[in-house]
């Protein structure tokens, strides 16, 4: 059965980015807005963010948005667009105050202001030393942001379609005119017709085997829009966070190092002093992840194995338990390790997509490397690429990105919807996706989706991880394409209509394979090392040839074409990056 709904604005995804946009849309009572989410909103992965949200409040020491912008540009290895970075860092202070006014329970300084702590890559006076810029609520900052935004949506009476999974985008006359969603409970398809759509569907860490991302992090929005002809920007830049729990990938926040925790190798040496003499353990993430790998490659992993220690034992029970209660609990639960007394075994974990759906600074989706805008189509949050993070994101800048650009997208959509008409739908809007889902269900023999997924994750971890080189990446491209072929013949055991997560997981695997391919193809082409993209065969940054954004397109017949777009550089000229 098919159902049709009509709205002015649709928000796809109920994480920080989606909810922030929804709040702004809902402030306009005449605007009919709905949020569609495959999870209950409070289950979104924004709730997992621990360490904090960056803003130069200067509550504890002098700070300025300009220093924040410089750090972000430097952190991005000069690939971030400086106009967008300026917007983000300048609007940061106001938006944090706004979140506080909405009720966000930040931790407090003794005089009652928002508490701040140091974080990787954040410095004062253009790199002179660490600064306290990360606004936090213990180690549950993301949880508090997600809760606060959801609470404000309830207050504003926003319409939610929970456990509705968007599976296709509707386009007519080069304009976005809605989406098709699969109602998880009934298995029915619903057509949502609207003037404007925001993609806020989050990241795709599930492409890799060791990841801090939730099972839901399958990049649905990026994959759907890519299939519908929208490019993906800078997909080769995927961040590996230095400190994931060994084997599990669960994140241990940089806040541990912000509070004074240090990394140690098998000799007990604080090795970051060698790699980053000024910022040490608080150098930016790509630098620290590579250092850890280097230590492991050179045999100084703990007991010669693939992990090192994160040591917080000198901080004392008071600091660890009060300021880092959740990670203390994770270590005790999953490792049987008490971080007050024992070091934590960690390894880099696939964490954050710098790349995504390209947008302008108002969240409007960009159709090509010339900046052509797609009417009615917006993206924000980890699904999008503005690009403020360039080749490497600084900690605390994603949560900031969500709220700044979620808000801007909400405002831009409201303005657009005020004058736009309701678009016509294409004929047979559910036809293509209904056929694809039926095809997936019809197969009666073959291998399970999980097997294909596992092979993809291992391949991507081995060859398109922290370090990459030509032959390895090529192997990954070939393997992913082979898996895409095998995907055509996988078998789904659950043939029912109700809550068929077996079917949805298989469909999500299709998205992951799509994004794995784009990531590997983009990485293969970029013959330099920049930020998170580290080529062993091209170890240097090459500004002469590669100071540019990648735009990947799916062309007729399935071929991927890569084109490039210049970086916006205003104040900060590219320099060598030293921490």
């Amino acid at each position: 059965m098919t159902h049709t709904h009509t709205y002015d604005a649709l928000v796809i995804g109920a994480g920080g980015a989606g909810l922030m946009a929804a709040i702004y849309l809902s402030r306009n009572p005449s605007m009919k807005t709905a949020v569609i989410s495959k999870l209950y909103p409070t289950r979104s992965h924004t709730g997992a963010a621990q360490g904090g949200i960056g803003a130069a409040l200067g509550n504890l020491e002098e700070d300025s948005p300009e220093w924040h912008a410089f750090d972000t540009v430097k952190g991005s290895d000069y690939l971030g667009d400086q106009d967008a970075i300026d917007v983000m860092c300048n609007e940061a202070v106001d938006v944090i105050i706004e979140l506080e006014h909405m009720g966000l329970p930040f931790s407090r300084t003794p005089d009652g202001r928002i508490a701040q702590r140091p974080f990787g890559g954040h410095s004062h006076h253009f790199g002179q030393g660490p600064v306290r810029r990360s606004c936090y609520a213990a180690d549950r900052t993301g949880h508090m942001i997600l809760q606060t935004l959801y609470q404000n949506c309830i207050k504003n009476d926003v319409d939610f379609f929970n456990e509705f999974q968007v599976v296709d985008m509707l386009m007519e006359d080069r304009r976005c005119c809605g989406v098709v969603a699969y109602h998880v409970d009934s298995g029915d398809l619903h057509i949502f017709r609207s003037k404007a759509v925001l993609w806020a569907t989050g990241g795709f860490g599930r492409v890799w085997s060791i990841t801090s991302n939730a099972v839901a992090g399958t990049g649905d929005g990026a994959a759907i829009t890519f299939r519908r002809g929208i490019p993906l920007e800078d997909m080769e830049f995927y961040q590996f966070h230095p400190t994931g729990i060994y084997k599990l990938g669960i994140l241990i926040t940089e806040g541990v190092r912000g509070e004074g925790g240090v990394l140690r190798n098998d000799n007990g040496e604080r090795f970051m002093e060698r790699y980053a003499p000024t910022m040490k353990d608080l150098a930016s993430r790509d630098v620290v992840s590579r250092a850890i790998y280097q230590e492991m490659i050179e045999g100084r992993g703990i007991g010669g194995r693939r992990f090192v220690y994160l040591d917080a034992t000198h901080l004392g029970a008071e600091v660890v338990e009060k300021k880092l209660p959740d990670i203390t609990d994770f270590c005790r639960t999953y490792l049987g390790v008490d971080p007050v007394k024992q070091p934590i075994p960690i390894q880099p974990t696939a964490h954050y997509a710098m790349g995504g759906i390209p947008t302008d600074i108002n969240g409007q989706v960009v159709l090509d490397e010339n900046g052509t805008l797609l009417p009615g189509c917006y993206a924000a949050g980890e699904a999008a690429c503005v690009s403020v993070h360039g080749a490497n994101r600084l900690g605390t800048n994603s949560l900031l990105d969500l709220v700044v650009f979620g808000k801007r997208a909400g405002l831009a959509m409201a303005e657009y919807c005020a004058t736009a008409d309701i678009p016509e739908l294409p004929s047979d809007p559910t036809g293509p996706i209904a056929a694809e889902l039926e095809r997936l269900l019809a197969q009666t023999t073959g291998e399970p989706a999980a097997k294909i997924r596992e092979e993809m994750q291992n391949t991507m971890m081995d060859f398109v991880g922290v370090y990459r080189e030509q032959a390895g990446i090529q192997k990954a491209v070939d393997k992913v394409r082979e898996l895409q072929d095998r995907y055509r013949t996988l078998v789904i055991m659950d043939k029912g209509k109700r809550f068929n997560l077996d079917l949805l997981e298989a469909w999500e695997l299709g998205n992951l394979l799509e994004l794995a391919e784009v990531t590997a193809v983009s990485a293969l082409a970029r013959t330099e090392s920049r930020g998170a993209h580290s080529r062993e065969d091209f170890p240097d940054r090459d500004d002469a040839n590669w100071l540019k954004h990648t735009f990947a397109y799916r062309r007729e017949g399935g071929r991927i074409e890569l084109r490039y777009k210049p970086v916006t550089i205003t104040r900060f000229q590219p320099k060598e990056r030293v921490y």
Partner: protein
Amino acid sequence: MAKATIRILRYNPEGDAAAPAHQDFAIDVEPTDRVLDALNHIKWYVDGTLTFRRSCAHGICGSDAMRINGVNRLACKVLMRDVGSRVTVEPLMGFRVIKDLVVDMDAFFAQYRSVLPYLINDSRPPERERLQSPEDRERFDDTTKCILCAACTTSCPSYWANEEFVGPAAIVNAHRFIFDSRDSAPGERLEILNNREGVWRCRTIFNCSEACPREIKVTKAIGEVKRAILYRQST
């Protein structure tokens, strides 16, 4: 690797059986596997029809509360070595079962919404943050941790007896605002909770506190709300 038997209470809304029934799965597990890993293994490689909610896999999204050996837990926060080689997994009690371990959470979220779970302060905000001392912030810290997993509400005999009872989770979320020094409407929430289906249905049985995966002192929070209502009535 060790052998384990996972006994799961199954229900297929489209199947022939009218009532839920147990099914055993014998699988290999590592002692450090989460119960969620065991369920995933079954779903991915043994029986794809097995259905349960999950997302973060480390106890912060609240998706996978279920009864594990008779007590409400998050499947992602319980390790196999802590439950032994025979584990029984069943859906939460008190909610309608949709399929296998998936229950209908709509009533639960409606109760949550009924307590005005958002900051109310209509005075003009200052230019900068509203100040709040660390002591005032501490006052409601415990109840900010709630992930709305429903483990508490579905372990509560008062809730089983009367589904109109607003339940511990909603009270926890009311507490979070009633004791926030920045909020100006605690009276309204106390009024709501002083209702027939409010805090007085709580018989201080402590199941909720034991069930809470965030170790929130739920019964204590409910007690504080009860006292605030009595205090308000006496002044």
